[in-house]
């Protein structure tokens, strides 16, 4: 048993485990990039990595700082355009997408635009960027974010990116692609999915050392807590070694 892993290493490992070989994933900078690279170096060597600025299938030599960084198309199969990759998403070629957020609600809708009122912001955040596109188009979106009562909220200050909107069938009624939507949420406390009937967030597993009480105490909305809740598996020393190879400077993983 290895107990000296960092929280970021655990998140990267859990996120990587969700990705399947032979599928495609839209990644951003930071943790999603690490997770996708870890998946490629372990169970999913044929994972296709796509960047929203146009990089397709790169062999990333060192961690990119930006999703348009030259590292995102280093030895890639194509250095294309936003139109190319976003159209691929719209047409159904992209399986997974990673998203972060400042706020999430029970249906997996996300806010990255503003805290406070839109026309009188307390905090102005960057806006959608590619998040709305990824959340609209990818078959399965994976949300990685910090969890506390200010971030897990009943009502968002602004709905930037669609989750399941207000429940079952809402995405399709709005005109979003059928069968797409949030798949998993990963926080520093646990791993969640969405109940098939209500489309509300449901606890799937807690991280080692985290209790269900911790989970509930850090959400302002009621989470679905099933009778059986698993525990996530911590990264092995071998996985941690690979993570250090991927991020030698500690840009994302930290020192």
């Amino acid at each position, binding site marked *: 048993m290895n107990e000296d892993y960092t929280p970021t290493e655990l998140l990267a490992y859990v996120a990587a485990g969700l990705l399947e070989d032979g599928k495609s994933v839209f990644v951003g*900078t*930071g943790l999603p990039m690490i997770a996708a690279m870890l998946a490629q170096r372990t169970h999913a060597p044929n994972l296709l990595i796509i960047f*929203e*600025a*146009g*990089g397709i299938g790169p062999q990333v*030599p*060192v961690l990119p*700082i*930006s*999703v*348009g*960084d*030259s590292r*995102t*198309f280093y030895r890639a199969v194509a*250095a*294309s*355009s*936003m*139109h190319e990759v*976003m159209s691929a*998403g*719209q047409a159904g070629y992209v399986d997974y997408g990673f998203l972060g957020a400042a706020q999430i609600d029970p249906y997996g*809708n996300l806010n990255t*635009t503003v805290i406070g009122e*839109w026309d009188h*912001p*307390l*905090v*102005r*955040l*960057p*806006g*959608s*960027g*590619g*998040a*709305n*596109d990824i959340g*609209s*188009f990818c078959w399965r979106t994976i949300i990685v974010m910090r969890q506390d009562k200010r971030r897990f909220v009943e009502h*968002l200050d*602004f*709905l*930037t*990116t*669609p989750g399941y*909107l207000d429940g079952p069938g809402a*995405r399709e009624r*709005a*005109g*979003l*692609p059928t069968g797409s939507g949030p798949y998993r949420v990963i926080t520093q406390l646990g791993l969640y999915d969405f109940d098939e009937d209500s489309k509300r967030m449901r606890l799937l597993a807690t991280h080692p050392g985290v209790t269900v009480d911790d989970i509930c105490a850090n959400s302002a909305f009621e989470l679905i807590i099933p009778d059986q809740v698993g525990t996530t598996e911590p990264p092995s020393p071998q996985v941690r070694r690979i993570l250090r190879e991927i991020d030698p*400077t*500690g*840009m*994302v993983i*930290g*020192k």
Partner: protein
Amino acid sequence: MDILQTGQGELIGWHDPDEHRAWVAAHKSRALEDKRTTLREAIARYVPDGAIIACGGFGHIRVSMAAIYEIIRQHKRDLTFCGKTAVHDSDVLIAAGAVCRIEVAYAFGHELRGLSPASRRAVESGRCQVVAEISNAGYQWRFLAAAMGLPFIPTRVMLGTDTLAHSSAKVIEDPFSGKPIALLPACYPDVVLMHVHRCDKYGNCQVDGIAVEDFELARAARRLIITTEEIVDEEMIRSQPWRTLIPYYLVDAVIEAPYGAHPTLMPDRYYFDEDHIGEWLRLSKTDEGAAEYFERYVYSVEDFAEYLELIGGEERLEYLRQVEHLEAPLRAPWLEEKK
């Protein structure tokens, strides 16, 4: 046809397609003409106060900083910015008081480096107004509609969200599938500033690496100012015509500006100057600091060549070339703080 929803964001940069055709017919020359000029002349001529402007590249990738500094140097005012993945470009323009309105796909952030203190302060205090929201794909498709000479383009983004409610899009029932579909209005910026790897004196441009949305944006622009790492002979363009991303008739001005994207990244040429971006992020935490930055790097220098000397000249630029080619390790103030 029933309109199911109308976004309440301000519609910027839209023209009736026939009006735009007439404008193109009257103002865009099809003649193969030498368009070389200076940045001072190009900015003075094509960027009036109040114009709607957009930058090529991707926020801090291949951004024409040479043109942006010249806009600041000439004290342009009341500009509206197309914030299609805007990072360093919009941050300095807002901080300098040149841009006071912005349509936002992505702005006020520096990706892994954190949020932009200066432009966030401007928006939260009301000095800069967000006129509409949109997504990255949505903005690029607004430019695609313009490039095609269409009034709008149908897409499946933003549906069901506040992003759409605060955008300039409309939702209708698609007459083919019967499903709701978002119509994104064309966007024709008055002026686009774009930095490329090489072009000839007529403006036939080649770009190495990802095009991002510059194919669409160059064609959506009413006026297109090109800064280039180098001006090459026409023969180089004609020997490999399949490499031309932007043909000359779209271009209004050509300015040779080596390292013209510094401190942003120029693919295969030079990496981000993280020390310089770090200095900006540190200074721009206060209005006084931002003013100090502009005084040092923009107002007190004559042109971009003098600026390049100020940031460390040949030695510095050689280091950035090495980082881009993975021959030297990256140094970054924000990376040091993480350690």
